[in-house]
């Protein structure tokens, strides 16, 4: 029988960047069903004033986002904003304008649990995206196909659901936009550079960017594609054909509203069974690990992000960050060891009568394998000084296979 504590820890690993010390204690007594509803009804964390948005080499926004992830009040809305950042991708490496990246961040946060179609409409003419996927300055005479292709391949439909002719048609109808700091929203449409007559996209006549997005979102392939991506994000496993159909139909039926889809997934009995089925992605791992270790070090967090290949505002390519077991490869074990090796002996563990129990509780490891349990107990016996013992145990725990998984 799996404990409510274990289920709550799992819920928090999937719907936040924690759990942080004390959160399982707070939620578990009311039971997992209540915990799910608490998570679903929690308000978004207010965004507040922007960080320093001065040009590079300023990197304050990265630290801002990492600190936000480490806020125990960050929940589902923030987890989804992160998801959209890795899905409707733009990277500061190419955009090179923090104000634009900040504006895009707010756009994604505003609709993170809202209207998917509206989000894609906004992001299509968003200045950061126009720069990232070369939409700015694209002219109908010889349009740049980058955004049109990635919009369909990666953002909305998936391969096999459009043709190269559709890519070209989309590129034509998306042309005419350019960056303009004076314009509302930072971009504007120049009619003489856009289409003067409609073209055929996926069987419909389109002439504007709005037409393109509407046509694409109306495609039968769109809802199951997005539902499938969100399923993988929360379930940690690939959907079966039946699940893809089920959640695709649901997303379609609710008019591509994200909240009801996420509610459906989290309330699915399969969700509570899918524990530790995927790696913790780097930002999840390092945020939870630093919380467990009691570190408030934005510089260290940013360095770890770089070493693990997952830096906020810097997706490696337009497909975002990959999913899958590759996040458990040897180079990541080295980073986990490097952070764990820096652990200090936290008082609550050093003073506890059973240091191993206190360590596991501090790290919210509610289901532990015999191998890890044994390694911790052997280590506890081998180190006599309570402070050193606590440091070693905490370091081993955040680097353990259990902690590496979500």
């Amino acid at each position, binding site marked *: 029988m799996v404990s409510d504590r274990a289920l709550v820890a799992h819920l928090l690993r999937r719907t936040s960047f924690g759990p942080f010390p004390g959160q399982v204690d707070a939620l578990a007594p009311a039971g997992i069903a209540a915990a799910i509803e608490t998570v679903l009804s929690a308000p978004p964390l207010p965004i507040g004033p922007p960080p320093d948005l001065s040009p590079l080499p300023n990197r304050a926004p990265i630290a801002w986002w990492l600190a936000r992830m480490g806020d125990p009040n960050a929940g589902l809305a923030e987890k989804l904003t992160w998801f959209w950042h890795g899905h409707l991708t733009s990277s500061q490496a190419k955009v090179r304008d923090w104000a634009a990246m900040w504006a895009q961040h707010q756009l994604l946060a505003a609709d993170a649990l809202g209207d998917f179609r509206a989000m894609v409409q906004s992001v299509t003419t968003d200045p950061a995206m126009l720069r990232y996927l*070369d939409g700015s300055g*694209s002219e109908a005479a010889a349009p740049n196909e980058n955004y049109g292709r990635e919009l369909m391949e990666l953002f909305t439909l998936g391969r096999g659901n459009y043709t190269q002719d559709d890519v070209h048609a989309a590129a034509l109808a998306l042309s005419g936009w350019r960056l303009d700091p004076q314009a509302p929203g930072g971009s504007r449409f120049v009619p003489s550079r856009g289409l003067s007559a409609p073209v055929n996209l996926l069987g419909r006549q389109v002439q504007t960017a709005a037409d393109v997005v509407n046509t694409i979102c109306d495609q039968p392939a769109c809802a199951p594609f997005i539902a499938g991506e969100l399923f993988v994000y929360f379930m940690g496993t690939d959907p079966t054909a039946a699940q893809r159909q089920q959640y695709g139909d649901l997303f379609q039926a609710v008019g591509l509203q994200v909240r009801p889809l996420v509610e459906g997934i989290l309330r699915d009995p399969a969700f509570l069974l899918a524990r530790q089925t995927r790696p913790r992605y780097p930002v999840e791992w390092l945020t939870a690990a630093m919380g467990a270790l009691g570190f408030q070090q934005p510089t260290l967090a940013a360095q770890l992000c770089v070493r*693990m290949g997952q830096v906020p505002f810097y997706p490696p390519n337009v497909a975002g960050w990959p999913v899958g077991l*590759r996040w458990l*490869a040897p180079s*990541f074990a080295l*980073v986990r060891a490097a952070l764990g090796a820096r652990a200090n002996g936290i008082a609550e563990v050093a003073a506890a009568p059973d240091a191993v129990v206190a360590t596991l509780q501090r790290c919210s490891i509610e289901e532990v394998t015999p191998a890890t349990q044994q390694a911790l107990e052997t280590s506890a016996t081998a180190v006599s000084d309570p402070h050193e013992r606590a440091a*070693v145990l905490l370091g*081993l725990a955040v680097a353990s296979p259990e902690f590496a998984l979500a």
Partner: protein
Amino acid sequence: MRTLRMKVLSRRQFLGYGLLAGAATVGAGGLVEVLGRNSAAGAGQPAPSTTALHPSFGTAPAVRAADVSVRRLVVIDMAGGNDGVSMVPPIGDPLYAKLRPRTSLDPATVLPLTAQVALHPSLIKLHGRGLAIVQGVGVPTPDLSHFEMLRRWYAGDMDSTTDTLTGFLGRLCDAIGDASAAAVGVSLGYGPTPALVSAKVSTVSMDPYGSGGFPTPHQLDAGAVWTTAWKSMAEYGPTDPVPFCSARKGAAYALRFSEVAKGFPAADPGFPTTELGAQLSLAARILAQDNGVRVVHVPFLGDFDTHQDHLVRHAALMTQLDDGLDAFLTDLQRRGIADRVLVATTSEFGRRMPDNASDGLDHGAASFALFSGPVTPGLYGAYPRLDALDRNNDLVAQVTMAQYYATIAEGWFGVPAADVVAGSPTPLTGIVAS
């Protein structure tokens, strides 16, 4: 710098918007018809000749390859779509400038190869050393998606017909490597490359800016306790659930490889401080000894996806390649292993022949690849015809991915191509200088 700007009509403009249903009837010569040229009158490229190489190309003393049993491979992966035509411009073909009014290179600046074909101006040092240039490398049925083509190249599955879980380089490691080695293949970067997924031997990834050593706590008593605990948490077996097995295996290989990394020699200070420079510097240190590593994958991490501002961006990448690879070859010579390391480049596709209004180039098909090290300098394969583009106005492959990989497997390692690549591809001959 060229200022001639000729407006090139795209095939679709000629046919008119909204009449794309007619586009399917345009044949391979369609673009030439649009431009009004006489496509029948020998407008194509003469076959380039390796006997007419410019004397300034490949003037460095030749290096003869060592015995197969000690050979190693470095693959420089120019992911993003390296424009082969800019790397090896066909300056003898008038169609080059016609199709690329915004992005063709000034013939006065390029480095000479033959009367028809040159090398990018930035590749100065490599031009002097000599390269085996493979022209028109691609696949029979190209796809314009980065992710699909990267998948095919990493998997060594050019027709996308297999469901292989292993990578081409991983299978190569399985064929040539020692299963007891801590690693036979190493990918540099944050996380493994699919190219190196193997079935029998170990392959690992390594942070190019790290030492590979295993971190231990600063507390004095704790080192041995820590390592013991790590080793027991890293024991994996067939009864482990898959994610736990992966987590433990990752730790186990990190521990073993760290032992090997302790023995890497110091870095050569002569490398440029670029991503590629750092990666190649580490590659030289990894391969310097007989530690079991035979293949290193170098991800370059340059932005080759030049949909905009192609000329300037591509030139910077070629400069990085020239500086980094030259420093690497010098380092190998200094370490006495220049005869046993082959460098091969890959890129998932080249770029479209006609340029776009953003001074850029969209995704294409065939590209060009480079071999350096103990090779016979020259041009191999055949230059894809600019007057015989495919229906997307892209270059048609003259050497397939399978043939290219077969060349590496058989020509360099003596591994039968059929063991590592689907089909029965014929390797190119004469490249390895033995």
